[in-house]
């Protein structure tokens, strides 16, 4: 849970088993459900977490997101940052 944890490009992040990611029609958004909690995700967060299956590398997640959100040139850095922050929150594992 320390702040200086870094994901490497070859790491394959996966959603922690306590968390459930799914589309919620009533919120018109993806939500993350876990014991006693709900988090509504914005589009970018949802696209990243959908790929945290333990099968896709961080590098591939970044590449796919880059293709998805072409108008954001600096997206790669923010994806690694997002992975690290959500790892700190316990949402994902390496």
């Amino acid at each position, binding site marked *: 849970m320390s702040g200086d944890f870094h994901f490497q490009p070859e790491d394959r992040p996966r959603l922690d088993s306590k968390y*459930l990611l799914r589309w919620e029609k009533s919120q018109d958004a993806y939500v993350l459900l876990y014991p006693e909690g709900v988090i509504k995700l914005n589009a970018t967060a949802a696209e990243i977490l959908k790929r945290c299956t333990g099968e896709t590398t961080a590098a591939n997640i970044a590449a796919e997101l880059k293709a998805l959100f072409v108008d954001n040139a600096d997206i790669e850095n923010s994806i690694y940052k997002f992975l690290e922050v959500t790892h700190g929150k316990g949402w994902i594992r390496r």
Partner: protein
Amino acid sequence: MAKDGSAVSLDGQGKPMWLVLELTYRCPLKCVWCNNPLDFDQYGKKELSTEEWKRILREGRELGALQLGFSGGEPMLRDDLEELVEEAERLGYYTNLITSGVGLTPERLKALKQAGLKQIQLSLQSANRSLTDELVGARAHDLKIEVARMIKAEGFPMVLNVPVFRQNIDQVDEILALAEDIGVDYLELANIQYYNWALLNRDELLPTREQIERAEAAVIAARQRPGQQMTIYFVIPDYYETRPKACMNGWGTIHLTIAPDGAALPCQEVRVIEGLEFPTVREHSLDWLWNDSPLFKKFRGDEWMKEPCRTCDEKEKDFGGCRCQAFLLTGDATNTDPACAKSPHHHVIEMAVNKAREKHHVPRPLVRRQIGAVTTVFMEHK
């Protein structure tokens, strides 16, 4: 049970995101801090049927409910629990079971897993057999530990909920060690809130400030231990805060509780407030109860507020605190929660706090939650 500290990062946008079904008030334990009504035994004959609960589940999803708690009493006393979990899963809820562990046999645990149950919150009162058994009025400690290990072996995420008060708060280190050994995911050390049975016993249960400070220090040390996997929550009692809790995240904003008899409630304790009507799902749709019933409209928003809340710049943050506590301790549910230091009634909280630290405190027996322990017939009621 929904608590302060529940991690909600969603504005419900007017939807009852948290639905709690109090399937029954029956319970094999006799906890002296129980938050069920004092006349809990009056509800047995009025309990909803399986089909009625299923209708609530469907209507709840239509209203946008996401998190679902099966609570009580002891929900394991309902034979249809597995069937209700299965239906809830089919409808797309995130299902939580809130249990004392009594009645959670290996067979039923497996059946619940199969039905799709997502998470189990188990209560434990101490790390010590004789203390737990005394506190709950039954031989339950060994069983609870066994159930806790079984839950982890079955692969459920698990919240270990420890209600905290004067008699067990000095055990925080031992409880932390036990929870780590079991492999608990979330440990919730929650100072109890004082309603119903807990309020009856408050003078004996309220810890001192020094006890709370020591417990909190132990929690902070445990959180910083290298390799700590467990998420540890520590909820201090609002009696020791200078601002009230943001009770239920505001009245009728995200929480909807259904009592065993089908009454739709903005919170589990609300029946303590006199002069309100509590319509049930037997006469009304959930939609009407949530959106249009006078009960849910009563304290929604801030129109009802008096001073000092009305002009307070923190009213968006704590919504004036708890309506039930305002009623119970000041006699008027529209008053500021006396836990707030700005409340003109704050002295009633200070008196309770001072009493907790009295050197020559004359101990009184604790009243156990059981039929006949008290009589409620002379209370103006319901």
